[in-house]
């Protein structure tokens, strides 16, 4: 999976790339790690994404390098995960509200369950990728809705409703008995 790359124009392309893009490597790996759900695949995704980013760096003229890199990481993940095309192309996952069946979870119970980082990690890992990515971008990377929209190519309204569903699903997962954690 070596990607040949043309080098961006400019004599100091690599230093500029390191200064603006490589400093977001932790963010890139964080997104890849949560999307791929294992370290080896995450490293493959990031390596591929960084080489692609370098290849396209000639067309990047400033702005938010983190948003730019995260968009490439996401794209690379869905491209490499050949079995499943990017979600924006279809609606294979459940995007509907579950008519109140979760009611309003008791905040204290939720807090107690969520305080267990392992349990929270496992619940997050069980979510569909479409939910995981918006949650990771929002809660871990603290991206604005506008940034999430730019990274995921979703409309801002869709970002909002998807986050709502992602959080409701996560809350439901947390409140399930731990024994059912792994399907």
């Amino acid at each position, binding site marked *: 999976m070596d*990607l040949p*790359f*043309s*080098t961006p*124009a400019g*004599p*100091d392309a*690599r*230093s500029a*790339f390191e200064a603006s893009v*490589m400093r977001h*490597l*932790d963010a*890139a*790996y964080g997104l890849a*790690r949560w999307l791929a759900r294992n370290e080896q695949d995450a*490293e493959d995704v*990031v*390596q591929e994404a*960084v080489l692609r980013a370098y*290849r*396209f760096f000639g*067309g*990047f*003229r*400033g*702005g*938010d390098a983190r*948003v*730019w890199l995260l*968009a*490439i990481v996401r794209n690379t993940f869905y*491209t490499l995960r050949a079995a499943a095309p990017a979600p924006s192309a279809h609606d294979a996952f459940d995007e509907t*509200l579950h008519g109140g069946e979760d009611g*309003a*979870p*008791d*905040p204290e119970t939720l*807090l107690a369950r*969520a305080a267990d980082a392992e349990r*929270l*990690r496992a619940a997050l890992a069980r979510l569909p990728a479409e939910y995981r990515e918006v949650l990771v971008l*929002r*809660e*871990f990377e603290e991206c*604005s*809705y506008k940034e999430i*929209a*730019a990274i995921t*190519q979703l*409309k*801002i309204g869709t970002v*909002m*409703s998807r*986050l*709502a569903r992602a*959080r409701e699903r*996560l*809350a439901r997962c*947390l409140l399930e008995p731990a024994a059912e954690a792994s399907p």
Partner: protein
Amino acid sequence: MNCEEARVLLHAYLDDELDAAASLAMAQHLAGCAGCTQRYRGHARLQQALRDPALRVSAPAALRARLAARLPAPQPAARAARRWPALAAALAAALALTVTLATWQTLRPRAPAGDALVAEAVSGHVRALLAEHLLDVPSSDQHTVKPWFDGRLDYAPQVKDLVAEGFPLAGGRLDVLDGRRVAALVYRRHRHVINLYQWPAADGETGTRERDGYRVVQWNEDGMHYLAVSDAAAADLDAFVRAFRGASAAGAEPAR
């Protein structure tokens, strides 16, 4: 606001992504609804738990080292790679939005002073269209749009009904130009959007310019500076400016 709407909007509220009017509506709903308040508190707790540093991961040192070795040394010779041309095209298209936004941001500092404002206005116009945050107050009624700015600005913008001239009002929003909050009115011409910014200034630059495919018309009138931006045909934007300058305003008081 009903509970079904609140159920989605409370997330934007939690993330501080609602405008002032929607935040207020949300706060009012929460104040009177125990179910939504419970839900809100649950999600606030969940968000708090997700901020736990234990859930964060850093890029492994081995990956950094591998990448450092794989990236070409400084001052590389240009090589064309066309093994995956289709993928390259798809990626380029996917990144076009980001790159476009980035272009505006790099244009701004380089522009000379007079151009800087125009560039910022064009940028604001494009951002509003891309981010779909075109309207804070969607209304074709000038008597709804004008009072909406009360208390949000320290001046009252001129809002005019131009539907007879072929420029229906779509609404208004608050924007920021040159570091100050300004009123932006949104009019439509067929499928094109016209953003009209205005703020108090007696001696703003006037005239017509083209910038990156957008036409910008600026004028001063009655102590107010106006800046119209659109990708509508040049003749349409000029007609819009004539119509706006000729029409009477909502709640207009006689000039003193």
